[in-house]
């Protein structure tokens, strides 16, 4: 029952993130959704991934969004009211879509039993997998981080 409540909270946080008028609140909602996802991961014993999720997705990425919101011009109150009216027309269907889809999936899932191949032993530790079995993943991560750094340098370089 608690699991269902937390999952519902996660979906509700995502809906609030999308539907809220203020971009700042959207960024905060995203952090909230990440924090709830962290709780789910901890409950599934995925501790290392949960720590990454909490520190990076709930910490760093909202800061990035808040920075870009502050770098761009926010709306005035009058503009925000006007935009809110248009936004409501576009976003009123989202809770409806979620409720209908959730109900339909709930009914279908009563008959659907996923057959996943279950490993007999839990397998090696996550640190062993990262450092010994999937070293190419680490190499790829380092490469993509450097690619990102160079991309940001090129994007923000001063024009002469």
């Amino acid at each position: 029952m608690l699991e269902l409540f937390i999952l519902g909270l996660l979906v509700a946080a995502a809906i609030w993130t999308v539907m809220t008028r203020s971009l700042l609140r959207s960024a905060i909602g995203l952090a909230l959704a990440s924090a709830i996802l962290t709780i789910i991961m901890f409950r599934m014993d995925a501790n290392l991934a949960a720590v990454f999720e909490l520190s990076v997705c709930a910490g760093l990425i909202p800061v990035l969004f808040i920075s870009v919101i502050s770098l761009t011009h926010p709306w005035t109150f009058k503009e925000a009211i006007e935009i809110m009216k248009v936004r409501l027309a576009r976003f009123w269907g989202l809770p409806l879509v979620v409720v209908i889809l959730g109900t339909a999936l709930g009914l279908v899932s009563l008959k659907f039993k996923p057959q996943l191949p279950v490993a007999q032993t839990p397998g090696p530790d996550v640190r062993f997998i990262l450092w010994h079995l999937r070293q190419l993943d680490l190499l790829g991560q380092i490469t993509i981080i450097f690619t990102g750094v160079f991309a940001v340098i090129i994007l923000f370089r001063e024009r002469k």
Partner: protein
Amino acid sequence: MFNLIAVVLLFAVGIYCLLATYNLIRVLIGIEIMIKAVTLLVIFCGYQTNNLALAQAFVITVIVIEVVIMTVAVGVVVGIHRHNNTLDARNIRKLKG
């Protein structure tokens, strides 16, 4: 089972956000929500198949890639705002045609 339903609902919320909004920052937020759905799916599959350590390794890779993508995308959004003074995707017409 509820985890799979939550994954589909989260992904649907992200896609709806992508389709319904014109604000570039909100588009990135929609992509973030979709990535969260994928993260939850990977962890759930790892948990169900008794391969949680491997799933965690994949999730860590996904998170690293996600951060780099978001950093570059945010840089692009700031650049677009500097050039066009707007974040509305409908007003960005310089690459049209």
